[in-house]
Each structure stands twice: as structure tokens, then as C-alpha cells.
């Protein structure tokens, strides 16, 4: 799998993401500067976390307008895989590659903590290393992760099986307490209709090494490496 990581000014989890990808594929991903527009040869384009342009207007809004995002859109339209994590998810949503929006956390505070995620379907390139319904732990760190979409969109997402992960208790229960940021229907991540674009708020890339407290996030990257092996 050839992976590329898009770097916008203000992005700060690109190195975490590179470590996770390298761990799964054995090769360093290509770092793609936001002014580049050629993504040829990449199987997976990753938009990592951070504060692109300081998130000063709305999270992800300014990055969504940059030249590289037109190329990411074209890559997605060609059927390429795209992963957006945290700020990357916000950027995908602002670009319109995924529906909905990410609002300020319901408690209005930045939240940096571990959460538990339930895998809603296991038949995708991203989730193939998990069982459906599996629960894993993941760090999260964001101020604007409160997923919002109108009811029709939410119903469609659920109806078409496009919810990727939900915030749950360690036992896998969907409860208001497990839903730290107040997301609609506990949604932590969603797929595009072709299941090749995934956006999620938490940071599985920060839990891929027992030394850092666990490897719960590793299946995401191992699964991608297996599914997209050339």
C-alpha cells in the first residue's frame, strides 16, 4: 500500500500518523504538502489531525479550500481510499466529501481522553481486521467533535450502513455518558457511500504501540495495509 499524508499549515499529528502507517506497511508514507496537486500512485490519502490554519474560522474550513483538496476529491472520485482523522474528518466534511458537520463539543471544552469505539461494520478496507461489534479503546483530543447532521441524513447514514464507529462504553453500550462530545446518535466516524472514504474524530494512530499504553488502534492500519496491498 502506498500511502500519502497531506500536510496543511497547522497540522500536528502527521508524524503520529506516519509512525502508525510505517508500522503497518514497513514503508514511510509520502508527505504531501498542501500546495501539491499530484496524488498519482497513492492507494490511500490520509488527512491527519491538528489545527489547520489554526482552525480560526471553523475547523477545517480554510484547509477545505486548498489546492490539494481538489486532488483529494478527484482521488476519491477515482475510487481511491481516503482517511480523515480529527481535523482531517472536519476537513472532509467541510469539503463535502462526507455529509454533516462537526460542532463544538457539547460541554464546550477541549476533550483529551480515551474513549471506546464500536466497529459498526467489518467488511471495509478500514475495518477488516475487527469483528463487527468489536469495541476498542482510542485516544481522542478535540474541541469540535460533536457530529451533527439533519435527521434525514442521519437516517440515510444508518439505513445505508455508513456509520463506521460509535462512542460506546467499554462493554459496547451506546449511552449518553459514553458520548463525550455530544455527537448525534453517538457517531464517531462515517463512511462515504462507496465505503472508501472514512472520517473519524478519535486518534487510533496514537494507540498502536504497547509502550504508549496499547495497540488497540493498530487493526485500522494493519487492515488497510492488507486490503490495499498492491
Amino acid at each position: 500500500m502506498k500511502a500519502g499524508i497531506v500536510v496543511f499549515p497547522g497540522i500536528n499529528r502527521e508524524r503520529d500518523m506516519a509512525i502508525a502507517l510505517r508500522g503497518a506497511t514497513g514503508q514511510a508514507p509520502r508527505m504531501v504538502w498542501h500546495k501539491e496537486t499530484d496524488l498519482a500512485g497513492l492507494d490511500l490519502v490520509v488527512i491527519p489531525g491538528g489545527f489547520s490554519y489554526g482552525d480560526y474560522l471553523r475547523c477545517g474550513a480554510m484547509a477545505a479550500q486548498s489546492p490539494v483538496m481538489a486532488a483529494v476529491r478527484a482521488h476519491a472520485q477515482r475510487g481511491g481510499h481516503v482517511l480523515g482523522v480529527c481535523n482531517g474528518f472536519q476537513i472532509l466534511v467541510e469539503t463535502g466529501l462526507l455529509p454533516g458537520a462537526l460542532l463544538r463539543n457539547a460541554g464546550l471544552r477541549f476533550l483529551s481522553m480515551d474513549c471506546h469505539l464500536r466497529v459498526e461494520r467489518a467488511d471495509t478496507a478500514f475495518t477488516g481486521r475487527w469483528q463487527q461489534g468489536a469495541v476498542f479503546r482510542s485516544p481522542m483530543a478535540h474541541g469540535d467533535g460533536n457530529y451533527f447532521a439533519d435527521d434525514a441524513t442521519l437516517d440515510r447514514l444508518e439505513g445505508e450502513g455508513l456509520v463506521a464507529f460509535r462512542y460506546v462504553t467499554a462493554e459496547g453500550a451506546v449511552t449518553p455518558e459514553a458520548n463525550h462530545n455530544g455527537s448525534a446518535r453517538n457517531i464517531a466516524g462515517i463512511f462515504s457511500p462507496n465505503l472508501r472514504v472514512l472520517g473519524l474524530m478519535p486518534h487510533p494512530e496514537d494507540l498502536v504501540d504497547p509502550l504508549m499504553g496499547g495497540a488497540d488502534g493498530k487493526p485500522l492500519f494493519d487492515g488497510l495495509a492488507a486490503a490495499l496491498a498492491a
Partner: protein
Amino acid sequence: MKAVVTVMLKPGVLDPQGKAIGQALHTLGFANVGEVRAGKVIELELAETDPTAAKAQAEEMARKLLANTVIEGFRVEVAG
């Protein structure tokens, strides 16, 4: 001239910030505060002398960048 773009969450989109401000105002003893909504305002200096053109430009900026029309609405006012 100056264009002022006001961006507010659409009705129906939960506004936790407005809610928190409302609660804080009640705690401070402002009993007759009802609903509170919080939004953003962006003041733009435009090199443009025609108010209609200025307004149209600011609206385009709002649509393209300043507001996320999935969740937000906006209004534009133009001043001298």
C-alpha cells in the same frame, strides 16, 4: 467600504454556546433573559465603492468560506 457578515447557527442546530451563556446570565441574576444564540461576525474592508457590488462580493465570500451552510445561515450588511 465595509461589509459586516453575521453568521449564526441555523434554527434547529443545537447551540451549546448560546445555552451556556444563557445559563451564566441567569446565574448572574439576569432573570429576564430568554433564548440566547451565539454567532460570529466578520468585518471586511473592501476596495469597492458600489454598495450592491460590495454586498454581492461579501455574500459570495460567506457562501464559499465564512459560513458552512450545512449548519449556518448568514446575513450581510454594507456600510459606508
